[in-house]
C-alpha cells in the first residue's frame, strides 16, 4: 500500500533527493537499485511515453520530469497510478511557492528544506496534507522556527 519511495535525480542520474518508506527488497544494494530506476526512466521517451512504468513484481514507478529533474515515486503494483501524478505535481507546486520559482540549485543546496516540505506533505508513504495554502503557511512558520 502507498508510496514505497520518493526519488529525485537529474538527467545525469545524480541523486538529489531520496526517501524510503519501506525497506527495499533485500539483495539489492540501494545505489544499484537507484541506478536501475534511472536507467529505466531516462531511456524512456519523455514526450511520447506515459509517466507510468512497471518496475518489479511489487513496484511500479510514477514519474515526471520537470526541467532537468526527474521526480519518481515507487508505488504498490496494485495502486492506481493517475492520482500519484497529481501528488508529484502538488509537491512541485508547493516547492515552487516555498522557494519562489524553484530550480535544481535550490534543491541541491537546501535539500534539508526540501525534506521538510516532503515530510509535511507525506507521512509514512501516504499523502497527508493537500492544501497548498495550509502547506505554504505552515512551511513559512517552520522555516522561521529556530
Amino acid at each position: 500500500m502507498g508510496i514505497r519511495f520518493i526519488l529525485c535525480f537529474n538527467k545525469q542520474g545524480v541523486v538529489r533527493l531520496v526517501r524510503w518508506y519501506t525497506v527495499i527488497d533485500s539483495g539489492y544494494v540501494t545505489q544499484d537499485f537507484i541506478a536501475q530506476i534511472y536507467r529505466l526512466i531516462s531511456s524512456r521517451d519523455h514526450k511520447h511515453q506515459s509517466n507510468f512504468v512497471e518496475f518489479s513484481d511489487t513496484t511500479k514507478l510514477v514519474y515526471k520530469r520537470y526541467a532537468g529533474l526527474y521526480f519518481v515515486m515507487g508505488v504498490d503494483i496494485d495502486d492506481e497510478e493517475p492520482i500519484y501524478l497529481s501528488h508529484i505535481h502538488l509537491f512541485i507546486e508547493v516547492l515552487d511557492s516555498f522557494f519562489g520559482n524553484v530550480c535544481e540549485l535550490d534543491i541541491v543546496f537546501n535539500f534539508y528544506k526540501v525534506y521538510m516540505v516532503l515530510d509535511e506533505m507525506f507521512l509514512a508513504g501516504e499523502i497527508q496534507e493537500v492544501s497548498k495554502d495550509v502547506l505554504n503557511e505552515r512551511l513559512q512558520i517552520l522555516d522561521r522556527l529556530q
Partner: protein
Amino acid sequence: MGSSLKSFIKDVRNAKTFSDERTIITKQSAKIRTKLRDDHLSSSKKRENIQKLLYLYILGEPTHFAQVECINLIASDQFVDKRLGYLSTSLLLDESQDLLTLLTNLLNNDLNHPNNKYIVSLALSTLGSLSSYDLAKDLYPDVLHLIETSNDPFILSKSLQCLSKLISKDFELTILSILPIDIFVKKFFSNNKNDLLLTNNVWLGICKFLQSIVILLLSSFSSSSNSDLLSDQFLTDLNHCFSSIIPKLFYQLSSLNIKNYESSYDVQGVRDPFLQCEIILTLKYLFKLSKLSTNHFISLINDHYNKFMDLLTQLINNSSLNLNKNPNNAILYEITMTIFELEMDQSLRLLGVNILANFLKPYNNNNNNNNSTVMQGKRSKNNHINNSNSNNIKYVALNTLIKVIKYEPCAIAKHRKFISQCLYDTDISIKFKALELTFTILNKDNLVELTEELIKFLKDIFSNNNGTHDYVYFDIDESNDLINYTVDNFLKKCDLFDSNQDAIKLRSLFEILKIVGNMISIDQLNEFLIIINNIENWQVKINSLIENISNNMINNRIVTNNISWNLIMVWSIGEYGDSIITKANGNITSNHLINYLNQLNILYSQNFKNPLISNLSINKHSYSDYITMIQYILTSALKLSSKINQSDAHNIESLRQIILSHQKDSNLMLQIKSNQYESIFNQGINIKRIILDSMPKFIKQADNNNNTSDHNKIQPNQNRNNNQNELLLDLLSDINDNLNQEKSTSSGPITVSNNNHNSKPISKTTTLTLPKDNIDLIFKTDLLEVYSHIIDVQPGNAHLELFFKPIKTFVKSMHSLCAVSKQQKLTLGHLYPHNTDIEMNQIVKQSLKIVGSGKLKLRVKLTLVTVSSNSISDKTQEIQFDYKFNETI
C-alpha cells in the same frame, strides 16, 4: 576547501574528474567522523556536520557510523536540533535496525510535548516511517491519546495517519480492548460542532485509518489463524461504527464533487481529488469487507449499497465532462476500479467500460490545458504535457480493460476501433497493451476485421523497422518483440477460422509472411506449415498457392531476403506440385517450378558456404537456418520428381542435379541427405509415389502435462509409439524440473538426470585427476571450479568432459544438467565416480556427447547442497552459467 555545508556542496559539484570528487568526499567523510566524536563540538557545528552527512547520504555514501549521533541530536532541547535529528534518523535508519529501541523514550517524550505542536508533529512523522513492531507496541497508547485529546487538525491528521501505520504493523493492537473506533466515532461524528475538526487532511487520516482496519480484517478472515481473536461482540460493534460512518463519507464525497471553487484545494479545477479518491477507495474496502466476510457486515450492503451505486453514477456524470485533466481522470479511474472490483450490476459496469473507452479516444488537443505555470520558464517544451497525459490515461485504461475483460467481454469488444488505434501509438508499452487486449477480444465475430487490423499493424512496424518512417520511436529489438508476439498469438487464434473461411485464413497467413517473413523463427514457420497442411479445402489451398507462386516465380523475381516465404513456397511445391501444375492451366509449368528450386538452391548454398559475400540480409537467420532451408529444397526436389511427368527427362535430370549438388557438401547432414535422396530418386516410380505422397493431416497432440503451451508436441498420426516415448521422456524431465533439457532420440539413453537424491556413494576409492592438456577452466566461483576437456571434435559431433571441483567446502547431492543450442543434441553421461557427494578438492567428471551442427555452446545448471564447518544448517544452492567454446561442429 571551505568548511560550511554550502562550500562542501560546491566543492563536490565543481570537482572536475571522478577521482577529484572521490577525494573530496572521502576527506569530508573522515572529517565528519572525527568532528562528531568530539564531545565539545558546539551544537551549530554539530548540525552543520550532520547536514553534510545527509548530503553524503543523498550521494549514496556510507553513513551508518553516525546513526547514534543522529539519535542523540533528538535529545536536545532546541527545536532546530530536534528537527535535524529526526530527519537524519528517519533517513539513516530503517525499520529493521536494533538501534530503534533507543528511540522509544525520546519519541514518548516528544509525543507528549506540552506546548510545541511542531515537535509532536516531528515525532509522529518519524514514528510513521520507522514503525517497527516494538515501537508500534510501546507508543501506540501515546498516539491514541493524542487523537483523543487534541483538537488541532494539524496534529489529528498526523496522528491518524501514524496510527493506521502502527496498527498495520501489529494485528493484536487492533484487537486490544482499547480499539479506538468508539473514541473515534464519538470524537469525529457525534455532533455537528465537530465539523471544525473535520478538515480535509483529517478526513484523509480517517480514510487511511478505516482502510487499515478493513485490510487487517480481510486478511484475518482469509487466514483463519487470527480470526478467533475477533469476538462476535467486537465485530458487531465495528459494524455499527462503520454503518454510522458510511453516510458521512457519502456526504463528504458528494459535497466535494459538486463544483464549488476553493482555491486552496483546487487542482486543475477539481476540488481535492486526493480526498475524493481516498474516500472512494475507503468505501470500496468497506463494501468489499461486507461482501467477503461472514454475516457480521452484511447490513452495510443492505443499508448503503444502493445509495453508493447512485452516488458513483452521479460522480461519473459530473466528472466525465472534462477528460483532459489528470485529477478528473484519477477520480474516474478510481470509480471504475471500484465498479469492477465490487462486481456491481451491469448498468454500472457498462458505464465503467465506456469511461475506459473514452480514455482511449484520440485526445482533443484544442482544449486549453491551463496546467499550472510552475517551472514554466525552465521547462524545455510545455506542449508535451497534453501528449503524455493522454498516453497516461490510455495506458491505465488498456491495463484496466485487460483486467476487467472477463466481466464484460462483449461491451469491450465493441470498442475495438479505439483499441486498434492504440496499436499505432508511439509509446511502445501502449502498443503492447493494445496488442494484448486485441488478442483477448478476438473472437469468431470480429476475427476477419481484426486480422486485417493486425496485418496493417505489422506493416506499420515493419516500415518503422526499415526506417521508412520519418520517425523511429523504438528500437529494432522492441519491434521484433512486437512482431513475434503478434505472429505467435495470431497463429494460436487461427483455429477460430471456420472451414469456409479458409481462403481468408490463407490470404492472411501469406500476407503476414510477406511482411515479416524474415523476422520470424523457424519454429513459428512450422506452425504456418501445419496450418497450410491442414486446410481441408483443396480447391482453395491450391488456388491460393498458385496465386502466390505465379506472382514471384513466373516473372522470375525471387524474393531474396525472405527466407520464411521461400521456405513455405519450396515446401508447397514439393507437396502440391502436381496439383499446382494441373490447376494453373499452363500458367505454371514444371519448368517454372524446377527453375525456381534451382535458383533458390544456388542462392542459399552460396550463402551458407560463404557468409561473408552473402547478399541475403542476415536478420534473425543463422547458418543453421540456411541448412534447414537447403534440406527443404532437397526434399521438395525429391518429392516433385515423383509428381511431374516422368517422360520429361530433362526436368527429371534437373531435379537430380539439385539433389546431387550437395553430395560432397562440407556439412555432414546435407551430405547424408543428398546421398540418401539419390537412392530414393533411383527407385521405380510406383515405389516413389508411395514414399513421397503428400503429408497426412497433422494433429496436435494434447499434452498430459500442465505446461502444454511451452512445448506442444506435433506429430503425424501414424507415429503413436514414438509419441509415447516422447511423453515418457517429458514426464521425466518434469520430475527433474528442467525444461531446457534437450531430449535425445527416443532410443538413446535417458539424458535428463544422472543421479537422484537418495543415491549413496558407491565407492569413494576412485580419485580423479585433471588431464594435462586441452583443459580449460570455464567457470569459477568461490565455491567450485568447472573445467572442460575436449576429447574429440568433428563436423557433426563432439565429445567432451566436464570436471567439477569444489574448492571451499564439502558438497552434497550435486546434480548437474546441461543444455546445448537448438541445432544440437546432447547425451549427458553420469557423474563419475558415482557419487553426488564430493569432498573438497576432489574431482568428479561427466561426459557429454553432442551431435548436430553449429557453434559449441553449453548451458550448465548445478544444484548442490553446501556443508560448511561453522554452520549447522545446510544450504541449497543453484549455479547456472553459459560457456561458448571456440570449436564448431
